[in-house]
């Protein structure tokens, strides 16, 4: 992507991207005074190590292109999040570590001080997160940023896609210190709601997580896993999935089976991209901007 001002891009978003507002409606002024505005970038499902020319003949080049595109943004984001499937799975523990190391080396070129990670099932399900933790530390955590409370939930280290009672209890305790009007962002890999269980697009105990979140009035979830944008509400909680940086998948329920969309040489990188998320507290809501990957 050529250098482009983020605000200009937002103005153009009606043509080339999508702006979507959600989540913070009605909570203007509830965050701390310095939290008038900030933005962060979400990248997801990079599947480093994947090989398959029919789906992406530039599998080794797509992530570096995305890193360059983020670095080309005139205004650097406050931070960047990767919502899982950093690497493509392998049965070989050495190869898994090699892929994690290579991934870490590539994203170290991001010109942003704070980059946060979480695993996907491809990174963590075969060894319950052991290798992932060696490179990126804990798989669930929370942090504050300018008045917004972020929770990173791990629904992949258990290969059966459970968050687990222990982590759910941790999240409940973590949130209890907050006001019910506090803005909360949940970052995770799989959808917490039953988007398409017959395609494994769900979290086995995601309903329990949503029940814990439900009393809080301003909750937004950003996730990955399904390799495409999807926007869904469970009551007042907004859920936004991100595009992949390796290959897109077909829309939920559009085919008998879940399947990838083949590479189109006439439209290379179609369906791939990353997302800018702007939180403006005075103008309630998150603005989502979808950025493409270009040759």
């Amino acid at each position, binding site marked *: 992507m050529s250098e482009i001002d983020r605000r200009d891009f937002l103005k153009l978003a009606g043509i080339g991207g999508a702006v979507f507002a959600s989540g913070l409606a009605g909570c203007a002024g509830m965050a701390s005074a310095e939290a008038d505005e900030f933005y962060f970038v979400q990248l997801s499902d990079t599947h480093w190590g994947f090989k398959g020319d029919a789906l992406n003949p530039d599998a080794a080049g797509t992530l570096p292109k995305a890193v360059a595109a983020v670095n080309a943004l005139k205004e650097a984001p406050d931070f960047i999040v990767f919502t899982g499937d950093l690497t493509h799975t392998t049965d070989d523990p050495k190869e898994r570590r090699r892929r994690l190391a290579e991934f870490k080396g590539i994203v170290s070129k991001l010109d942003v001080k704070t980059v946060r990670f979480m695993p996907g099932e491809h990174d963590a399900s075969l060894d319950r997160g052991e290798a992932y933790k060696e490179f990126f530390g804990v798989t669930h955590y929370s942090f504050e940023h300018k008045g917004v409370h972020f929770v990173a939930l791990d629904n992949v280290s258990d290969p059966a896609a459970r968050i687990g009672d222990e982590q759910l209890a941790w999240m409940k305790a973590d949130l209890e210190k907050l006001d019910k009007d506090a803005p909360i962002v949940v970052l995770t890999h799989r959808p917490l709601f039953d988007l398409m269980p*017959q395609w494994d697009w769900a979290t086995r105990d995601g309903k329990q997580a949503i029940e814990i979140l439900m009393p809080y009035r301003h909750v937004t979830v950003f996730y990955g896993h399904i390799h495409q944008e999807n926007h869904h509400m469970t009551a007042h909680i907004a859920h936004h999935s991100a595009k992949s940086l390796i290959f897109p998948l077909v829309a939920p329920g559009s085919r008998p*089976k879940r399947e990838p969309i083949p590479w189109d040489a006439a439209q290379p990188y179609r369906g791939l991209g990353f997302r800018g998320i702007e939180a403006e507290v005075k103008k309630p809501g998150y603005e989502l901007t979808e950025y493409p990957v270009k040759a």
Partner: protein
Amino acid sequence: MKRRGFLAVLALLGMAPLARSQERVIKVSAKKFEFNPSEIALKKGEPVVLELTTEDVTMGFAASDFNVDVEIVPGKVTSVRLVPDKVGSFGFICDVFCGDGHEDMGGKIVVTG
């Protein structure tokens, strides 16, 4: 003991009454990254018992159209009783991540009238 009471005791003990033991049993084996058989033919209204096993790692068997979602653990038989209540072709998948190929691991239940 009257028969009704006897059946109730069996149910409390978690034992299947005689009628269930005569239900058709279909053995389904899982391994990376396939089910065998991958197509299960059933008749609407006919109760069957699926006896699920795995040859290698823990797998899942999820057929959401019939509210079936179980884990299959190596060395154990997981039995699932199923009474199809609709006709058609319904997918099932492995929903316990098992490696590169997991996403393609599944089959279909074909129910005829």
